[in-house]
């Protein structure tokens, strides 16, 4: 470990993240796209319940999110 203080070292992120590049601004792998879809679905549902459910029932948002999810998983 003593030589770890040598001149050749640099500071890097402790994580790496590899995947493909779609329309999303970052590289994502399959799991990421599912993850993003679920996160968006939950978040949109919360907002929908707060602001839009008086006018449109919740299943509308669910359908919209499902479509969004398919797009993200396919093309993201």
């Amino acid at each position, binding site marked *: 470990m003593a030589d770890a203080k040598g001149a050749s*070292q*640099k500071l890097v992120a402790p994580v790496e993240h590899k995947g493909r590049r779609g329309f999303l601004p970052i590289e994502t*792998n399959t799991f990421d796209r599912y993850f993003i879809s679920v996160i968006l679905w939950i978040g949109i549902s919360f907002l929908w319940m707060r602001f839009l459910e008086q006018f449109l029932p919740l299943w509308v948002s669910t359908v919209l999110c499902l479509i969004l999810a398919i797009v993200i998983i396919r093309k993201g």
Partner: protein
Amino acid sequence: MKSSALRKALGWIGLYGLWTVMIVITIVPIYWMIVVSARSRVELFDAPTLLIKSFYAPNYIKPLTDPVFQRYLINSLIIATSNALLVTILAMLATYALSRWRLPGADNIFFWTITQRMAPPAAFVLPMFLIYTRVFKIGDWTMFDTQFGLILLYCVFNLPFAVWLMKGIMDGVPIELDEAAFVDGANRWTVLTRVVAPLVAPGLAITFILSWIFAWNEYLFAANLTSVNARTITTGLAAFVSVTGTNWGEMAAVATVAILPALIFLVFVQRYIVTGLTFGAVKE
């Protein structure tokens, strides 16, 4: 020339001034705790002075000679040490795997591991209670109120942290070293214990320390998943808040005693902290 000397002097004054202030701020609460622990109950409400005028020993003697309290202390020691050992070993194995194999979904596993630490704990008391009393049940034995139960539980908080700490440090060990050892005929286990482990020792040390401190200090689950046998020192602390007047003096005494082991520990391993706490941000 002159202005440079002046600037230098000002720099020193600033440096020491800053640190004096920081040290005073750090010390005062701890010092006050010791002051309170040295006072009897009737003296507590005297006009505050920062001096220790007399030492009221019963605050210390009473808990320290109480067998129940001694058991709490021993429980805490066992639980913290075992948990820290377990976490350190598991984290070393896990990060070795994450860093040496291209496992599918490895970085997602890494993030999932960390999310384990994020939940607000209160909601998880009931499920943990049910799991420990219903699922882990062999005859009359349950995981509830056992040291083992807490040792296992604290992994939820400590393992994510440990994996994170160790991951980058593991990555920092050049894979060529492994290869060289393989060529020399070593098996994987020997490589891990003889080649890699010594190189990541500062990381192991810091993982061990932080896990130990956390396990020593945890309160909510220790209070709710134990009853008599496996109670820890922090639950003992809370018990001093009693109906007949919070026993501030004794509580402060117990708190003082409770930080001592951690303190001794910390002084010993001081020097590894700075080399180990990089969260793997250093790479050659």
